[in-house]
């Protein structure tokens, strides 16, 4: 039924706007101002629905360039997901094992995974980059990055 991509995106946007509007109608009232905090969000919610409807009926087809950009092989998708997963893991570990260790692991793992095979360079960067960043942030700039399990 939904033939074009625009129509699929449009339905998604309408659902999104509906959810947003639902929340705006449940905002707490503040009686002492003429225009309350729900005024602008309501306009935005309805505006998005109108725009999405326009998009639904938008006939302009994609250019070749745009289509090509969207062609992502399944394998590439998995690679991307893996990188996303690594970033997720990095964030998760950042405050537990500290900036230096988690960055080292991330640099080594991510570069290797993406096909970088110069081991010496990888290790050199993985050790020096986080250490220099950490020391300059913590001691020069007085901005504390997570210390984690290391003693400094």
């Amino acid at each position, binding site marked *: 039924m939904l033939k074009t991509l625009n129509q699929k*995106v449009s339905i998604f*946007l309408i659902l*999104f706007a509906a959810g*947003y509007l639902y*929340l*705006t109608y449940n*905002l*707490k009232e*503040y009686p002492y*101002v*003429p*225009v*309350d*905090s729900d*005024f*602008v*969000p309501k306009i*935005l*919610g309805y*505006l*998005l629905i109108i*725009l*999405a409807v*326009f*998009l639904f009926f*938008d006939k302009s087809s*994609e250019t070749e360039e*745009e289509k090509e*950009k*969207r062609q*992502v092989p399944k394998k*590439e998708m998995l*690679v*991307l997901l893996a*990188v*996303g997963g690594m970033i*997720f893991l*990095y*964030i*998760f570990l*950042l405050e537990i094992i500290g*900036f230096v260790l988690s960055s080292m692991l*991330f*640099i080594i793992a*991510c*570069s290797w*995974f*993406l*096909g*970088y095979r*110069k081991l010496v*360079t*990888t290790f050199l*960067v993985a050790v020096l*980059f986080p250490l220099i*960043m950490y020391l300059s942030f913590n001691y020069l*700039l007085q*901005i*504390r*990055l997570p210390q984690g399990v290391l003693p400094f």
Partner: protein
Amino acid sequence: MGAMEGLMQGIQVAFSWQGILFVLIGVVAGTLIGMMPGLGPISAIAIMIPITYGMDPSVALVMMAGVYYGAVFGGSTSSILLNAPGISGTVATSFDGYPMAQRGEAGKALAIAAISSFVGGTVSVVLLMLFAPALSAVAVSFGPPQYFALMFLGLTAIASLSDGSTIKALITATVGFMVATIGIDGQTGTSRFTFGNPNLLEGIDFLVIALGLFALAEICFLVKKRKDQSLQNQGDIGSLKLSKADFKEMRGPMSRQSFLGFILGVLPGAGATIASFIGYISEKKIAKNPKKFGKGSIKGLSAPETANNAATSGAFVPLLSLGIPGSGTTAVMLGAFLVLGIQPGPLLMADRPEVFWGIIASMYIGNIFLLILNLPLIPYIAKILKIARPMLISLVAIFSLIGVYAISFSTFDLYLLLIFGFVGYLMRLFSFPAAPFILAFILGGMMEQSLRQSLTAAGGDMMILISDPVSIGLYIVSILSFVVPIIRNRKNTQAEEADQESNAS
């Protein structure tokens, strides 16, 4: 007469060996800090404040001005090289700077940025010197209705920020505006769309959006192209060579945006971000071939860089002449003044001329230092792009993550960053432009607040919005800027068609 005398006094401060040394230190420190992920002028100045305890106030402030300048300049480097704008004032820089760097002209792009910054900075300092006292009246002339009109003008430019479908640009702008409504509402104290999460009460930070939609989304594309070695094998990406034709391209934007940027910088709240966007958009509007914008146009890079630096000095007008900080950065700057026992305000120029004029004179030196320091460094900085793709991807990812962490110190924002990276990637896959999103996000919040401030003060009367010449003028410009390009485009396409026909025959 008084001004000349004051200026001489200021020049004495700035040109003493101490003055020169500390401007130099300030500019170098500012540039380095500004290049760090996530650290813009606000953090740079806040970090430097404790260092100034006990220093001679005029020397300390001269150094601070250097830090401010350096940090604004340093921020553009990551925009151009990595598509990772560290502060909102350099988002527009990445629109054309990054494509140019990707084309293998990183050195040239950085040189254009440096020269444009220098021109914008220097011209605006002259303006600051001549008109600071007179312009203090302009700085307070804008009330909420006028700000609303100004933001409106900024938002009408959304359509022109994208090459593709206007509908898609408007949709992303609306969603960007929606994201700006998250957090405690300033006028009522109501928490909106926070789902009871304290991390969302102050809204989503600009940096999360910018680094997510721009830097992380770009990483996704780099991952796809990771085996493409084209950049590494290209000749000298650090080459600074600018041809005469290049300079000719830059001349227009530089001369116009120095003035426009300065004026916008004078208005409290508008500042470097709006100046850079309006600079970019207005140059695109009047350009002969706007199609080049967004694909590495020299004008498109020069305009925002000139404008944001000009606005940086403009922001000193309300600070020095009224004691009113017009932006987050000048608010911290005000803190730096207070630590040193100096209260900027209407009397600063009379009471402490050596401070007032010392800062202005130091800006000249600061600008010159920036240029002569940075031009020779550019070839080395540009070499970042020669790092092998897989390694570069890892480093840019950490760079973005730490940038966000250094301002919020919470992993919550990092997860948000990841989400916005994903959203940014999807947007690019489906050809939804990211620029309108970020523009609406920045302007939307201010626009809503000024609308509601106006209405509260007027007791709900909508007429307040169109009751004075300044706002009406701004609305007229908005409408013109919307209508004129459409008409001109139509003419252009007709002409092109005619051209093609005649060529074909």
